[in-house]
């Protein structure tokens, strides 16, 4: 049953690692702005479709 020592130690180490990761993320300012990234991640795809079309059309006009 000595394995319990190893298992618990590992589980604590994993937990400490996550705590460290969390603190690092906060320190780097990742949580300072929780809105913009959610918008930003939607942009890239949009851009790729657009860039190869020269005559500029907006979605709005396409619907008309």
């Amino acid at each position, binding site marked *: *049953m000595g394995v*319990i*020592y190893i298992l*618990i130690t590992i589980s*604590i180490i994993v*937990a*400490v690692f*996550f*705590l460290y990761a*969390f*603190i690092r993320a*906060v*320190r780097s*300012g990742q*949580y*300072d*702005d*929780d*809105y*913009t990234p959610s*918008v*930003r991640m*939607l*942009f890239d795809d*949009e*851009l790729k479709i*657009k*860039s190869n079309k020269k005559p*500029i059309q*907006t*979605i*709005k006009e396409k619907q008309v």
Partner: protein
Amino acid sequence: MNTGNCFHCGIEINKKEEIIYDEKSFCCNGCKTVYEIFSQNDLTCYYDFQASPGATPQDIQGKYDFLDNESIVTKLLEFQEDTTHIVSLYIPHIHCSSCIWILENLQKLQQGINTSQVNFPEKKVRITFNPEEISLKKIVELLCSIGYEPYISLENFDEGKKVIDRSLIYKIGVAFFCFGNIMLLSFPEYFEVEEYWINEYRGFFRWLIFAISLPAFFYSASGYYVSAYKSIKSGMLNIDIPIALGIVVMFIRSTVDIVFDYGQGFFDSMTGLIFFMLLGKLFQQKTYDFLSFERDYKSYFPIAITKILADGSETSVQVYDIQKGDRLLIRNQELIPVDGILISEKASIDYSFVTGEAVTIEKKSGDKIFAGGKQIGKVIEMEVLFSVSQSYLTQLWSNDVFQKKIDIKHKTVTDKISRYFTPALLGLAIISFLYWIFIDTNTAFNVFTAILIVACPCALALTAPFTLGNVLRILGKRKFYLKNAIVIEQLAKVDSIVFDKTGTITTNKKTAITYEGTPLNDFDLKLLNNALRGSNHPLSRRLYEFIPNQIKLIPTHFEEIIGKGIYAEIDGNTIKLGSSQFLKTMTENTHKKTKVHVEINGVYKGSYVFNNQYREGLEQLFLQLSKKYNLIILSGDNDGERKILEKMLPSTTKLVFNQKPEQKLEYIEELQKQGKNVMMIGDGLNDAGALAQSNIGISISENVNVFSPACDGILDASQFQKIGFFMNYSKKAMKTIFMSFGLSLAYNVVGLTYAVSGNLSPLVAAIIMPLSTITIVSFVTIMTNFYARNSQPATRNFQPATKNNPA
């Protein structure tokens, strides 16, 4: 095709000025140019995320010349190295995803910009650029040309590196780590089975739990020890004393339990308690990043201004370096930073920053002009009389009120309760200890510590943060933005409300003028226009601006009867303008409307009606408030409107006119000396002193992104008539707090019965603690939402409130 609105900015297009380009219609050349820039650079995606997201670019010629000045640029930069500069600019127009998109693609528009990143809640863009390829001035001009003019003020110049305090988040992270792991590790012991497996590893588990609890005890909870120590030192018993006491006792008793093998201790409850209480603190800290509650004149004033040197050349000079006798050049839309004398022939100055009144004031050469005004129109020259800090307006900030820390004057409701709670708790603990000590010393210690542990006012301490935090959010959704949770408690205590007049109970939008009566022909208008030209009465000036320009004629006779009207003769025609008494034609008595009657050649034509400029719902609001509060109107203007206001408002309303900024401050002070809790509602910089002095200063704003003086709360002007509701709601919030205090006391009583009788097991503690927390949190959340819904229907029409269309 488009529906008559500008493709770029969405403003309705005046048919005559419509510009069709690329099959899209634009309201002006500026908007068209922005579209051109975007389409040339393949950036028309901009218009996909949101319809008409843009703003018309403003004329900025010469406005940013000060960015040529190296030392000013250095102050603005966040980071500076040979080939990399970083700058953060505040751009008020940021309001939608299109804005984010275009601003993050700046590098496509301009060589030399490496990256740009938007922080949407703060409305800031952070630009990294290469100073060898592009200057900051160029970037700012680029931003202006696409309609995203940054706002750079004296405040940017003064502010140092901002240090963001994230320690609360770290503490919560650590506490949660400890709490979670300890909970897991103490699970086996909850069942208290005497089994080989558990007995074998008991020591290992317990000491591990002890070790994990250390960071939470020493780091996460450290704020409570400091606060408790401070409160003991200052002789005020606040809620942090029983909390700190509870935590410390819990830790010591648990350690003793483990060392002597009495039991598993209360480490799980202790860490849980620390975690939940920190969470409450975080919840209470609702901040509005895009608003600032600490503004003074610095946020309004420019960094630099153009100075004319003796040899006639121009240079930009930092405003703090302006000295008496300097000659300054003020361009269109520029702010006058110091008091001085006008040298140019004429100036029209908009003092809306200061007074809230949007009507421009004409000044002639030699007139004194005061700091805080904005020149509208041509470029003017002025000579400086006082430096920035000695000017009339800025002197207000040397008053003591602005030096004080506001936090000190408030005593929170939780602290008040704990003044009774703490001694009662200690008393109970000691009495039980004395009772048990005659029976069994061991139990006596157990009971003593158990009482302190159970009664540790976790639920009590959580009540206020969660209630107020939730109320803060609900109010924020209704466009009433408060600085912090303490303001809500203060709001509930208010008994006198002081209003500023101009810009607060009146709107500062230009009021519409309508004409009633027989239609006037061109000739009549010509006569009217020329008669009005000579008059300086405010109504005449406004009417003069309203009537289209006409050929200039010189009146042969002109007479202005003060308080009545104008009599003029032009080319043999007689014109009479003024009040109904003056014209002796009608005996009308509609005081709510201001009218100018017109009579030409002895024939009554009709009247110009100046529509009510008071905010909608003003009368109802005052009627509603007058039942519960002392109402006072404190105005910087003369008492010209006294009659109208007296008619409109309840008779109990006190009207005070001709108040200078310092006098407003003193007036509030006087009220407070009489023991009143004063709420001041104002808008301009001239109210800044009164707002700071009052128990709560609320600043009312047509556009919350535009600037408002330092205050405790910012109210969107469209919500003006809801003030009554907000006041009521704050009272309901306090009621909720008291109800849940009752609830948490009930929990304490239950827990104490266990404790006093010496039966508190760690398991019971571990159940009671989270259970009471959950009950309290859900109770206050439900109650505050219920009251918000019940008191008055919410406004559901959320406009993109942040968009500021140039009117």
